[in-house]
């Protein structure tokens, strides 16, 4: 079922032969002015009253704006100082060739990862991921805890900072060691839990291209039924190491996810520009990274979170644009302000899942505590997002209904974003040996879930 890579070599060659451009002019003279032009031309406007906008015209205008912007700007390779450009026909061709679904994982654990529609009644594919680094001794217990989650269709493990007691340094042998430890321990955890073939996205510890390449192995390592990520540079830039990853993933034969997080308040400016850029990143992922799915985490420049009102709008509007106009598979990554075992983090997880699911995205949940504190993530935050995602699909919510609900959720946490509570570390709210949440966290979870039910969420079970 997986489609062949799209003209991979022709496109990669453009990183060597495309128009010359330096970094700063690329942003100042190409990126920023072009974005401004399309925002105005297509009349894109953020509406604070509708974090989940219900307007098809807006979604379609966003798509048009993003295609035009992407064709105008292209993607800069910062190593060669060349711009990879595309013409309209190529974009259409690549979109036409997209199958819209893939079987991922293996054996009884295989699942179909597919594109969703706006207001789709099919539940989202949910990838559980703590999105943070952890102590070496917590790695396996954390993996087991996440893999035990019933709603996990796929899993991405935490990141190691040390391997065999040595501090990992990127691009050195310690990174290779850490990456192997990551891949092997993860596989072992999946087997122990009884999900040996679950779809794995690995390995976050492999930050460099060599790290990634060293763990492709159909027995102990990352398999062709698994996936890895390739990022972009801020904004619409790539480098040779990223291209190495993209090329290797294709040649090895695993699934590639394009990892992009346009920054609200950064070069893209406000919500409108961030949303257009997020859609344009889907095209970069498809054409440059040759990715099978687009994993995205638009985030706030000061908070590193995606659950402010503006960022919920960005996620919702951009996913609607993609879902209505292409067969691309989107996976929406939640970045939450508060840390584990707080009420706030659960409301944030719910809001992110709701806005994403009703807008046509799958889920990748979740990065608590602004994605920057070691050990500060647990499966419970992801569980909340997954349960809400399933609920709002099964309820077949309209965007208008979803918007009413999301406003209620925002009312629960919006005023606390600037000084969100850090919450607990994994080992503080989990029984590490059993890889199970403490009664206290379970009770807190139940209270929030009951409150959500009271607000109108109908959980399937």
């Amino acid at each position, binding site marked *: 079922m997986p489609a062949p890579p799209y003209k991979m070599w022709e496109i990669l060659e453009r990183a060597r032969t495309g128009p010359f451009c330096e970094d700063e002019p690329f942003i100042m003279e190409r990126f920023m002015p072009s974005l401004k032009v399309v925002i105005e031309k297509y009349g894109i406007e953020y509406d604070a009253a509708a974090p989940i906008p219900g307007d098809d015209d807006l979604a379609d205008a966003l798509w048009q704006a993003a295609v035009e912007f992407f064709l105008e700007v292209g993607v800069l390779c910062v190593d060669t100082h060349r711009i990879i450009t595309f013409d309209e026909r190529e974009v259409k061709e690549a979109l036409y060739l997209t199958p819209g679904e893939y079987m991922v994982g293996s054996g009884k654990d295989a699942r179909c990862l597919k594109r969703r529609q706006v207001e789709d009644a099919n539940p989202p594919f949910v990838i559980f991921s703590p999105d943070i680094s952890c102590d070496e001794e917590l790695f396996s217990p954390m993996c087991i805890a996440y893999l035990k989650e019933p709603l996990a269709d796929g899993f991405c493990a935490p990141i190691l900072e040390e391997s065999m007691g040595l501090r990992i340094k990127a691009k050195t042998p310690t990174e290779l060691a850490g990456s192997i430890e990551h891949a092997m321990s993860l596989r072992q955890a999946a087997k122990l839990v009884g999900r040996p073939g679950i779809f794995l996205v690995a390995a976050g510890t492999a*930050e460099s291209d060599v790290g990634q390449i060293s763990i492709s192995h159909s027995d102990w390592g990352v398999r062709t039924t698994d996936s890895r990520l390739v990022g972009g540079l801020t904004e619409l830039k790539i480098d040779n190491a990223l291209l190495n990853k993209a090329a290797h993933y294709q040649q090895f034969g695993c699934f590639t996810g394009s990892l992009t997080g346009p920054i609200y308040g950064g070069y893209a*400016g406000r919500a409108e520009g961030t949303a257009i850029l997020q859609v344009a990143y889907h095209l970069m992922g498809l054409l440059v990274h040759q990715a099978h799915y687009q994993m995205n985490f638009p985030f706030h420049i000061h908070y590193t979170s995606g659950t402010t009102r503006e960022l919920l709008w960005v996620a919702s509007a951009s996913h609607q644009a993609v879902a209505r106009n292409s067969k691309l598979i989107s996976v929406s990554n939640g970045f939450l302000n508060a840390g584990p075992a707080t009420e706030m983090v659960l409301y944030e997880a719910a809001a992110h899942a709701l806005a994403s699911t009703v807008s046509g995205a799958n889920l990748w949940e979740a990065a608590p505590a602004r994605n920057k504190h070691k050990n500060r993530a647990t499966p419970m935050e992801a569980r909340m997002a997954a349960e809400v995602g399933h609920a709002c699909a099964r309820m077949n919510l309209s965007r208008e209904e979803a918007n009413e609900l999301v406003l209620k959720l925002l009312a629960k946490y919006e005023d606390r974003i600037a000084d969100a509570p850090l919450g607990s570390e994994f080992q503080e709210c989990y029984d590490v040996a059993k890889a199970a949440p403490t009664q206290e966290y379970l009770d807190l979870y139940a209270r929030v879930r009951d409150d959500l039910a009271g607000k109108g969420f109908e959980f399937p079970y």
Partner: protein
Amino acid sequence: MELLERLVEAVEDGKDEEAFALAQGAMAVKMDPLEVVDALTKGIREVGDRFERMEVFLPEMMLAARAMQKALEPIAPYLERQSEGREKKGTVVIGTVEGDVHEIGKHIVALLLEVNGFSVYDLGSDVNALDFIKRAQEVKADIIGASALMTTTMPGQQEIIEILRDMGLRERFHVIVGGTPVTQDWAEEIGADSWAENAATAVAILEEAMIEGRGYAGTTL
């Protein structure tokens, strides 16, 4: 006076051509170049503060910084003639360490330093430790700023300091470190001169450091 206000406004609004023309005009009517630069500096700092308060975003700040540079072009020749006694800001070489491609935070720090009057050489991301030092020597920098966003690239900051020591150059540069996982403790452990949690603090710390006089500005070579 009117002219000066318009000039400051053009810079704050990021209108580079207008800023250039108005600055030319200011020099033509023989305004005091120092006074003009002071007013512009105040204006651009205000833009930096607005960014911190989230009233403007990165594009506006970048355009303002560029308009500031444009405005300084016609003023510079006059300034050089009477530059004695001017407050001296430092020269900074900044980059993200080897293996690390996270660069937006570093870029914001670079920009805010620039709008506050430092000369800034931004080496980009994934920069080898020795390259920081070579470049710092080349441009006679006072300050080396190293950003690391991953625990696995933080050793790159340490390497800069170790190589400086081994080259006998440690005292010559003020080394400031930053980035999400970097803490005051880490800065102390590796023997950095300072750490800043965000761009605004970095500016304050480095202004202070320049007054105390570490680096080329303070040493006689």
